[in-house]
């Protein structure tokens, strides 16, 4: 418990969230800090009030006026809620309402119990067709790419997500079996991968490093270990990585 206390102390500095590494994360963090602070204040204020009124001896024999104790404070809280809603919806709209820029990097994320696979379109910038019938991890085809489809010839399927820094990326998520949750805390990003539909999220990594990818939707006994790594590297390192993978695909 003591170490818990120490952890508590250390955490308070960075508002508990792991350091942000995404462009939109800066605004998210500001909003999070602000809202959590305000609501914590409300919580403390209300509870102090509660303790105080229940300890204080009877002052006013008659109940106070509804107006004073109820409507006015309620009005204030409503204002607060409106401000919270407006600011947050702004951010949400900016993030999600329109898709990624045309020049964004495209990667397909394929989830299955209990693995993440990352499918790069390769040189021709086109994904090869994939069919569940062809799935065979043993033969190195975990997402069922169709060998007959020449779009798929140069495709890269990796088990870690390697991204160049400062380049917007458009992930398209799908799942082969059940609902999974694609969660990268440092990217302030979460989106479910739902079988049968393809969902897009886009973001821009702004800091090099290795970040955990967690599964945030219960999907079975391996849910807790359904984790992968997102490696954000410089553009040159990224190109080098692509080349090396492309070689491996060629053989």
């Amino acid at each position, binding site marked *: 418990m003591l170490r818990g206390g120490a952890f508590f102390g250390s955490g308070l500095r960075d508002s508990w969230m792991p350091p942000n590494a995404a462009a939109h994360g800066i605004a998210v963090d500001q909003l999070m800090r602000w809202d959590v602070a305000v609501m914590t204040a409300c919580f403390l204020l209300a509870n102090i009030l509660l303790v105080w009124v229940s300890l204080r001896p009877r002052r006013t024999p008659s109940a106070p006026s509804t107006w004073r104790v109820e409507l006015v404070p309620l009005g204030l809280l409503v204002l607060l809620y409106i401000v919270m809603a407006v600011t947050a919806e702004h951010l949400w709209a900016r993030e999600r309402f329109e898709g990624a820029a045309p020049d964004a990097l495209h990667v397909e994320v394929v989830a299955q119990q209990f693995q993440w696979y990352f499918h790069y379109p390769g040189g021709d910038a086109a994904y090869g*067709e*994939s*069919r569940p019938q062809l799935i065979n991890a043993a033969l190195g085809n975990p997402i069922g790419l*169709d060998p007959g*489809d020449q779009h798929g010839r140069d495709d890269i399927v990796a088990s870690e997500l390697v991204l160049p820094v400062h380049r917007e990326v458009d992930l398209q998520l799908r799942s082969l079996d059940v609902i999974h949750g694609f969660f990268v805390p440092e990217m302030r990003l979460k989106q479910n991968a739902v079988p*049968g539909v*393809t969902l897009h999220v886009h973001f821009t990594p702004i800091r090099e490093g290795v970040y955990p990818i967690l599964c945030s939707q219960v999907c079975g006994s391996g849910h807790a270990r359904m984790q992968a790594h997102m490696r954000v590297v410089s553009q040159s390192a990224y190109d080098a990585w692509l080349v090396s993978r492309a070689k491996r695909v060629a053989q």
Partner: protein
Amino acid sequence: MPATFTRSVVDTERERKDPGFGGRPPVDRRPTGGGGGDENWDHRHGRGPRALLTRYRMGIFSALAGDLMFFMALVTAFFFRQSSGHFDGHGAYILDWHPLTIPPILYINTAILLISSVTMEMGRRQLFHELDVMEEWLGMGRPAARRAAPWLAATAALGVAFLIGQWMAWKDLASQGFFFASNPSSHFFYLITGAHGAHLVLGVLALFAALAALSLLHRMELRQIFVDCTAWYWHSMGIFWVFLFGLLVFFQ
């Protein structure tokens, strides 16, 4: 025994004597029914002999309100499912919804069900026939019950006919190779007709029970309640069916 329990034991004791739900024993002048702030309380509708009736009507109506939500959920699923398809490998959007042709017999069934609603209403009316009700109330014979019985029997018969009709419709589809699992529209066809059919089975059973009640139950208002609630249930099943049928015919 603690003090307060004896009070409720008094209640249980009293239950034994009092003939049925809510019939008020002489000692307890506590009125039941509807609250209401108006001064001339005694003129309020909802007390007196009809109190029990209104209570049970309220019950059946709230139950039916819930039931309506059940069918609403199915209909929502129907439209949701109708609009969900998938992309094949070549990026072509594929809808697997193949409308299926409604077996013609359903039109006949619908007619039968509507007629049955009429007979049901006739039967219900009988039990609220002033004179007959008074006679029965005073315990001289059961003219109302006697008049109602044939109507109820007719309704039950029509109900059974409807169910058989639905069954034939299913057989018909099966012979064309459409089974429950065949494709989405057949899922919904069987599901909707099945769910509604299950409700009607209950309705028919209720009708038989009501027929029995007419001769077995001793209190007039219980007989009324039995028939009345069955009737409202039956009518709403008819209405639900009309809407569901319209859904199956026009919105596939």
